[in-house]
């Protein structure tokens, strides 16, 4: 059960730690819970919890940033024998205002026969790929994986410029010229 209450701003004191559990958009400091974003205060009571959860639903949503395990949609920028570089554009269905860089290493493309993966037969520049964040990676890039059935290329363009449609989990066909191109396809959910 969720009840929406008043609008709050960061720093506003919301309640005592003994009464509530700190939810998203809040933090606890000493004995009290405070809001950390602008939004509407919500109290959620779930069965089994001894205390209700206090959270603040953001009104002005912060731009999405990739987090571990998040499903992201990204565009392949360049490929080389070891990995594909991508721009992360959407995180958990929410577009991020600026791109974040990510890479899909050849061992993270699929779950089986990892050593036989050829990046060029999995992704091509311009492909739109659904992937999962597996680690925060190095200073520059997030590390992504497509080693699940529903992950992989979801939209691509053939060499001739036609749209590609998946015909198996590792092949796509151009709608214009019927040429078949290899890809690590995502299974439609």
């Amino acid at each position, binding site marked *: 059960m969720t009840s929406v209450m008043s609008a709050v701003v960061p720093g506003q004191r919301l309640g005592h730690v003994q009464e509530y559990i700190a939810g998203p958009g809040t933090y606890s400091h000493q004995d009290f819970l405070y809001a950390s974003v602008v939004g509407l205060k919500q109290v959620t009571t779930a069965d089994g919890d001894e205390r209700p959860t206090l959270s603040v639903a953001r009104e002005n949503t912060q731009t999405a940033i990739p987090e571990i395990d998040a499903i992201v949609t990204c565009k392949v920028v360049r*490929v*080389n*024998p070891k990995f594909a570089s991508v721009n992360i554009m959407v995180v958990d269905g929410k577009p991020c205002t600026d791109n974040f860089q990510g890479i899909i290493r050849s061992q993270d493309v699929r779950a089986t026969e990892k050593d036989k993966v050829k990046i*060029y037969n999995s992704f*091509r520049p311009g492909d739109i790929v659904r992937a999962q964040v597996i680690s925060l990676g190095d200073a520059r890039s997030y590390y992504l994986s497509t080693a699940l059935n529903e992950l992989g290329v979801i939209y691509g363009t053939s060499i*001739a410029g036609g749209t590609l449609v998946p015909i198996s989990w590792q092949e796509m066909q151009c709608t214009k*010229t019927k040429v078949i191109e290899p890809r690590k396809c995502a299974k439609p959910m």
Partner: protein
Amino acid sequence: MAPKNKKGQADAADESTSAPTLRVILPGDQLPPHEANLPTGQDEDAVSMMIDQRAPPTIKLGPGLTPMDDDTIISVKAGVLNHTDIGNRWWVESNQRRYVAAPGESVIGIVTGKTGEHYKMDIGTAQPALLPVLAFENATKKNRPNFNIGDLLYCRVAMANKDMEAELDCVNPTTGKSDGFGELKGGFAFKVSLGLARRLLDPRQAVVLRELGKHFPFETAVGMNGKVWINSASTAHTILIANAIKNSEFLSTAQCQSMVKKMVERI
């Protein structure tokens, strides 16, 4: 739907009749449909494919020609329009200085870097090409040739596409033999235009090499990427050969012969 202004096209046709041996066309010029033997109302797929056996008479388009959405064929390069009746092939022969890698072509590359698995090679393309350290005759993980930065290698383009760096090899993958590919030791390498390189590789057209060969022995390797390597008994000869090849680009056969003769006489 007929274009109202056929000026560009008409020009091309006029000039080709005055000089029948050489038809120079410019980007945007249309290949006249009657000449290309294009049936009207042909479906698009047959034209847009480089090779298509389905709908005779078919036309095969080589470099420099591209089909447009309205079934016309236009040139995208300036050059000489060529045609052969065998397979009704059309292409534009142009000359340029920048190499774009194509699979199967022999090139001369310079080692510019080395990683665990690859040599980085400068073959004149936009991005450096990769040469796997195992792509040599009899190369194994333990026994592999070692090259240094700056070494010259004669190799073949194994894989090339616009999305990745080109991949090279120095071995015939089916026979496992080197087929003459490998390091070019000693000698001298220089750059010429791609058109000249192609002509040097054609025995019928390589007048300058034939003429030079009459005067002294030398070794040569020509890469499709416009790099030429030569080696001879003396430095003086090597310099002479290099200059003669560079000079020959815009000369007729007679001019070429006298040029070589004059240069040889001078030393």
